[in-house]
């Protein structure tokens, strides 16, 4: 971890007494993370531009009077950095106690969102005394926001602006922003309207990056009182061909929510409204779980797959026999990945001898 290959190494600094190599453009925080220093943060999300607001990641750098925010400071040759001195740890604890003092409660259910435990975990790690620094609470909740997906409980907001930044930098929606200044700061849409009247697309990324559960997944949190442990299963979203990685949250045999996979190669933590929130179909009573074959009188009868596929194949062959090759027209699904689309056109071209093949996403 401390040493890098010659071709990517641009310099060496001293991290807590050890020589450590760094790459071009790497920040002190990134170097520290690579070397498993566990520097605490609250406003940091590796996908976003470093912001420097929470100041928990401050480290001491020799020759600089005040500690510097490691997330916004680039590593430089010969720099001598200390990440965990007694003074730094005391500042971090005080900062956490200050942050805790502006929230109604700090323990939130895990189903709130992917990062929802970050703040509470840090309070526990630093044995931060909640109840210190009493005074006014910040944030004004917007729990009446009429949308079925995102609960906006700003009484638990710590103004780290991860939601605002993920909305602008990752999703490109710019649906939410910061109103007012200082302790009166609030997270709002334009003119402080509901989310559905804004340019929000309900992708849910704000929910998943929120470190306090101030933004909560309204659908997942329905299962808060459902008994059982939360189990996470890595899968791929079934909605379209992008192939976003997801972690499916289950309690017993029920799907209770979806987390985006931050390490998913196609999505890096991003999902859309469907992949994030539209999982109810799994347990819906109207959902088809067996193939149905239409009968002469127009009613359907349940069948097994072999029978159903045979029936479909017979139908195709009959059409070709009667009307010729070009009477068959294939339309591949936009939900299918590349490989399936390829197979489909092969099936139509080689199987039926026609070029009548298309894709629904072209419509």
């Amino acid at each position, binding site marked *: 971890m401390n040493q890098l290959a010659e071709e990517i190494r641009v310099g060496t600094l001293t991290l807590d007494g050890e020589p450590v190599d760094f790459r071009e453009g790497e920040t002190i925080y990134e170097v520290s993370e690579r070397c498993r220093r566990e520097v605490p943060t609250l406003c940091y999300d590796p996908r976003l531009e470093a912001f420097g607001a929470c100041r928990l990641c401050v480290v001491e750098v020799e020759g600089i009077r005040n500690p510097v925010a490691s997330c*916004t400071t680039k590593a430089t040759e010969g720099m001598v950095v200390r990440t965990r001195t007694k003074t730094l740890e005391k500042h971090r604890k005080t900062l956490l106690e200050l942050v805790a003092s*502006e929230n109604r409660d700090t323990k939130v259910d895990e189903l709130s969102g992917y990062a929802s435990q970050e703040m509470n975990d840090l309070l526990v790690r630093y044995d931060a005394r909640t109840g210190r620094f009493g*005074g006014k609470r910040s944030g004004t909740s917007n729990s009446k926001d009429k949308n079925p997906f995102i609960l906006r409980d700003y009484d638990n907001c710590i103004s780290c602006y991860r939601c605002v930044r993920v909305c602008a930098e990752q999703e490109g929606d710019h649906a939410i922003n910061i109103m007012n*200044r*200082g302790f009166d700061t609030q997270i*709002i849409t334009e003119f402080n309207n509901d989310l559905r009247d804004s340019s929000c697309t309900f992708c849910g990324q704000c929910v998943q990056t929120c470190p306090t559960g101030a933004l909560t997944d309204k659908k997942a949190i329905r299962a808060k009182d459902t008994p059982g442990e939360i189990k996470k299963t890595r899968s791929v979203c079934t909605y379209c061909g992008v192939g976003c990685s997801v972690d499916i949250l289950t309690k017993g045999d029920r799907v209770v929510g979806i987390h985006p996979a931050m390490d998913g190669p196609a999505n890096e933590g991003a999902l859309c409204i469907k992949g994030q929130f539209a999982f109810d179909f799994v347990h819906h009573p109207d959902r088809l779980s067996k193939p149905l074959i239409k009968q002469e009188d127009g009613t359907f009868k349940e069948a097994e797959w072999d029978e159903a596929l045979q029936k479909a194949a017979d139908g195709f062959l009959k059409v070709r026999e009667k009307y010729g090759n070009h009477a068959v027209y294939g339309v591949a699904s936009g939900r299918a990945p590349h490989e399936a689309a390829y197979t489909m056109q092969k099936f139509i071209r080689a199987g039926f001898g026609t070029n009548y093949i298309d894709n629904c996403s072209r419509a």
Partner: protein
Amino acid sequence: MTDQEIIDQWKDQDAPLLPVLHAFHDRDDYLSEEAIRVISTGLKIPLAELFGTITFYHHFSRSKNGKATPRVCTGNVCRLNGGKEMLEALKSEGATPMPCSGRCDDMVPVLHGDQVLVGSDANSLDHRATPLPAPNPGGSEECVFRHIRAEGRHTLAGYRASGGYLGLEQAVQGSPEALVEIITDSKLAGRGGAGFPTGVKWKAVAEAAGNPKSIVCNADEGEPGCFKDRAIMDHDPHALLEGMILAAFATGAHRGFIYLRYEYPETQGILQQAIDEAHAANLMGDNILGKTGFHFSLKIVRGAGAYICGEEGSLLNSMEGKHPFPRNRPPFPVTHGFEDLPTVVNNVETLASASHIARKGAQWYQGLGLGDHTGTKVISLSGDIQRPGNYEVPFGFPLATLLHDWAGGPRDGRTIQAVTMAGLSGGFLAGDDLEVTLDEPCIRGKGSFLGAGGIIVFDDSRDMVQAAHDAMAFFAHESCGKCFPCRIGTQRLTERLNDSGGDLALGDWKDEVEDIGSVMKATSACGLGMAAPLVTESLLRYFPDAIETHLSCR
């Protein structure tokens, strides 16, 4: 003007957002929802972002006829002089309070649309010019105030009559490098408070890669108890312009901006007139003074009420139309300033000093200081003092002489209990520490700093816990809300000074106040959060008994 005409006038210019917002605000007397939608489309700024940015500035009104309603200064000096009573008296006209508006050497100012009225009460409000500095009271040689009292100095003819623009004419005969050397040798340093050597800054911009470069004058004088830049701009505007043109020559910058605080509406007119005169005389524009390739043009960007916009990163973000949070540093503006290009950001007093130095030389300026100190500093003196006003002192000058000999001492029958330093940012000095000399090494030795040079006097009739509370309330009001220690710390410290933070015993009170102060000083992202705890720190140092009495009287 129609919506589209306003947008078309500005959309292809540098720094368009604030001028466009002001154009709508002036035309409609408020910023309507329709106007905000039009601007969002016209300047291609996402609606939520634009809305959020507008709410950052306290002088943009979003309710009908909002711009015209009076704003009364209830700042830290004016509340000693009846500011709150004035607010009460004008409540029926819809008056709202505003923080220090930089007129502390006069009676209480009231902003009526684009006019500042001053008076001791609501019946005596009157429109009058910014007070001139008093005649040089000590006879020591001045720099920026050298000719400011001369008749007609604010006009080009008057400015030239007392040697104005001779420094520029001399400078363009030589090389930009020679000018940088003069400024460096003079040891002129940033007079807005940070004290960075001006010559070094100009040199860095001259050498930095990237074009076009910019000269930005920070005229957002927002520090409570500071009103020196206003006097310079109103009575000696060409001195500032000459300083900016010199900076442009030294660095190769072709564009300049004066970021002027909202509370100085008359100053905008005075500056604009001076700019027009300078253009007509080929002191600005293309091929200045006949020198081929020396182009420089200047524009005024009016702020909209936010103290933090005096912080250079916030100021640049504000000019660019972004949310005015401070920027993370490094990189610094000398390489990544306005539009991420090399930029000089200098205070008004610094630039005005530079025009005198260009004419009279580095040795002359150095010689103005006392002892080892070089140069002069304008001190804005206000509060409980006989003759408040701007005084230019040599560095190293005794504070006591300024207070008692130059400014007439405390009001009759009173004694001076404490003074602030750096406006409010340096906290208080009291007791034996009132014997300091006015220079950074001495004042920093007392745990404070001289900064922009605002000094507010509190006599023995004042409750220092209340004074500290009002100072901290200002910082809480002006904290931008980005970094945690400042956003929460200024709020919690204010609450500890007015007891809304719960019933704390003295020991716990001190414990909390000291912990907050220490984390703010060490970890805040900009000077606001680092300086604010000096207020409580100095209160604890000089007035421990007052705190004890205050807590026991709850």
